[in-house]
């Protein structure tokens, strides 16, 4: 088989692009990954590329802002992927952790806050991470004994409770929200701040850097004892427990890590916007992120990145586009819904399926009588 044919065969256990990639020496693999990362850093300039560039760039939204949106959606998708994709725990309230992260920053750093601490953005980051992790453990402790859909509704309830408190307590300021949240630190040589109000580019680059760090961490975790425990729990919790996997402990870990990444997304969001209120944390948002994870390929890091990017990019791209004389903006979620259904019908395992999961599913299909 020629190389071209090999590359064209996208699927198959050892064939296809991913099989070819896996067989390369380590140096080639890392070089390719570094090239992809460099490509991600260069995305703000994609509009300069002739012919293809203008097709990609969003018209109704500032392209760099759209890219920043993509970066925190990807971050959230990566975090939720740990909970849903790796450990197999259905979490419908992921936005709750995003909110906890964002509100921690706002409370500590905004001049509107009752605490009057006025911390710089950077100082709030570790606090926010710790607090979201604690919130993950607090939610997980009583509820992780529940299975499947019971867990789903309880997590959904958790996010709703946080939103309701954000809307109605004076401490969290409801829809008046917090303004004047400080941006990340750093100044150019001429004294203007790097992280300003106009240009979202630096925030995007910060986001990409964070994503790279998180991807490396999660990937290593997935290949460690923790990751194998998650796999076992996802496939059969009872069997895993019998084989000596401490299921509760590892489920709690998945929750805490997922929460911490979600909180980081919230920290980024608050740091870029400078303003936030309770309207940013609707339940629909968790549902959207979940759709991204599953659409991309649940349990696969590349899939989560692609899915997270798509759920942010598709609606942004449709903004300001005219189709048959009508603004596509108001139809964006309609088209998005259709896109989700089509993707799931034609690629039920997601766009980039997790290979390990695919094997498990194939295994399971053998056990089931033909329909």
């Amino acid at each position: 088989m020629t190389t071209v044919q090999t590359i064209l065969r996208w699927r198959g256990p050892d064939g296809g692009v991913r099989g070819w990639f896996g067989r390369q020496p380590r140096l080639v693999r890392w070089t390719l990954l570094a090239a992809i990362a460099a490509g991600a850093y260069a995305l703000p300039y994609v509009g300069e590329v002739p012919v293809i560039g203008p097709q990609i760039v969003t018209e109704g939204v500032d392209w760099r802002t759209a890219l920043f949106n993509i970066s925190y959606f990807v971050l959230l998708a990566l975090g939720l992927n740990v909970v849903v994709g790796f450990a197999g725990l259905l979490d419908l309230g992921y936005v709750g952790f995003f909110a906890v992260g964002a509100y921690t920053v706002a409370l500590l750093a905004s001049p509107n806050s009752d605490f009057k601490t006025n911390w710089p953005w950077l100082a709030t980051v570790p606090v926010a991470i710790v607090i979201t992790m604690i919130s993950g453990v607090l939610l997980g402790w009583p509820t992780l004994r529940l299975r499947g859909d019971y867990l789903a509704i309880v997590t959904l309830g958790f996010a709703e409770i946080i939103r309701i408190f954000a809307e109605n307590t004076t401490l969290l300021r409801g829809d008046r929200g917090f303004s004047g949240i400080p941006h990340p630190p750093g100044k150019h040589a001429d004294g203007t701040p790097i992280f300003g109000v106009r240009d979202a580019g630096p925030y995007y680059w910060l986001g990409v850097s964070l994503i790279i760090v998180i991807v490396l961490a999660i990937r290593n975790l997935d290949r460690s004892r923790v990751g194998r425990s998650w796999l076992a729990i996802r496939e059969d919790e009872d069997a895993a427990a019998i084989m000596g996997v401490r299921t509760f402990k590892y489920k709690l870990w998945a929750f805490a890590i997922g929460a911490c990444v979600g909180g980081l997304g919230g920290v980024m969001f608050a740091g870029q916007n400078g303003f936030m209120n309770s309207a940013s944390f609707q339940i629909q948002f968790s549902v959207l992120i979940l759709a991204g994870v599953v659409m991309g390929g649940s349990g696969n890091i590349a899939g989560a990145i692609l899915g997270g990017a798509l759920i942010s990019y598709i609606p942004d791209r449709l903004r300001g586009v005219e189709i048959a004389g009508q603004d596509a903006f108001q139809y964006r979620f309609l088209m998005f819904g259709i896109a989700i259904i089509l993707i799931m019908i034609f690629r039920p395992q997601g766009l980039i399926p997790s290979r390990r999961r695919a094997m498990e599913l194939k295994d399971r299909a053998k056990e089931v009588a033909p329909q």
Partner: protein
Amino acid sequence: MHFDDLAHNWGPLTASGLAQGAIYALFALGYTLVYGVLRLINFAHSEVFMVGSYAALITWGFFGLDENSATPPTTEVIGYVVLGVLVAAAISGITALVVELVAYRPLRRHNAPPLAFLITAIGASLVISEAVGVATHRNQRGVPPLIQPADAFTIGNTHVTNLEILIILLTLVMMVGLDRFINRTRLGRGIRAVAQSPDTAALMGVNKDRVISLVFLIGGLMAGIAAVMYLFKIGTTRYDAGFSLGIAAFTAAVLGGIGNLRGAVVGGIIIGLFENYGSALFGSNYRNVVTFVVLIVILMFRPSGILGEALGRARA
């Protein structure tokens, strides 16, 4: 905390909570039936409900009735209400069937993993609510004053309105009818068989796809009826009205034990009551907090709901 309020208004709160709970119960039946058979949260069910509410409003619109028209004479009102319920139930039922055909059946053919169903359900829900949102310019639409709320009878300070009686009675009739249908008829036996074990049922000659369609249809019919009751009680509808109500109804289904029909009724009524008590105690903004806290506490002690999961049997 307003304990005085709660103690003083306990009667009226209970009456209105029962009516609200009855609506949740009807709505929750759709979730629980589909879950019992397919092990699937039908996320699009809230939109089935919303479509039903618009169907009734548009039907009444044909007769020139809108929120500003006068209340017609009683004989006509009965006709309008019956017609509205029938049309809403029919349209909701058809919507549920279409969702099953378009969003779920192709996935079953592909032997997709369970999460994939949840995502197409979310997609279907987005499509329906956004389509209605675009068509109605995201405005809310009011209900013609078909039924003027009036006190039917009074016990102490509790005024029970004719509307509340209507809602509770209609729900009871539907519940008993459905319970009989599932437990006594041939089709109902098919549903229970598929819920117990889809493959065995198929081997025994049950047409699985037909049973699944039937389940979606029944759930849709109930949601349509619930939608009309909701219209009378709340007075308006909107393209996103289904969502928050759907969450409450789904909570009710889980609380009672998802997959369990009687559980859905029990759960619905508990949620309806606690929402009302909760809003009296902590203010109406916090009523969902009360709902979810009740849910979490109950699930901690009974992890598969109050009555347990059983359309056929408890899950292994």
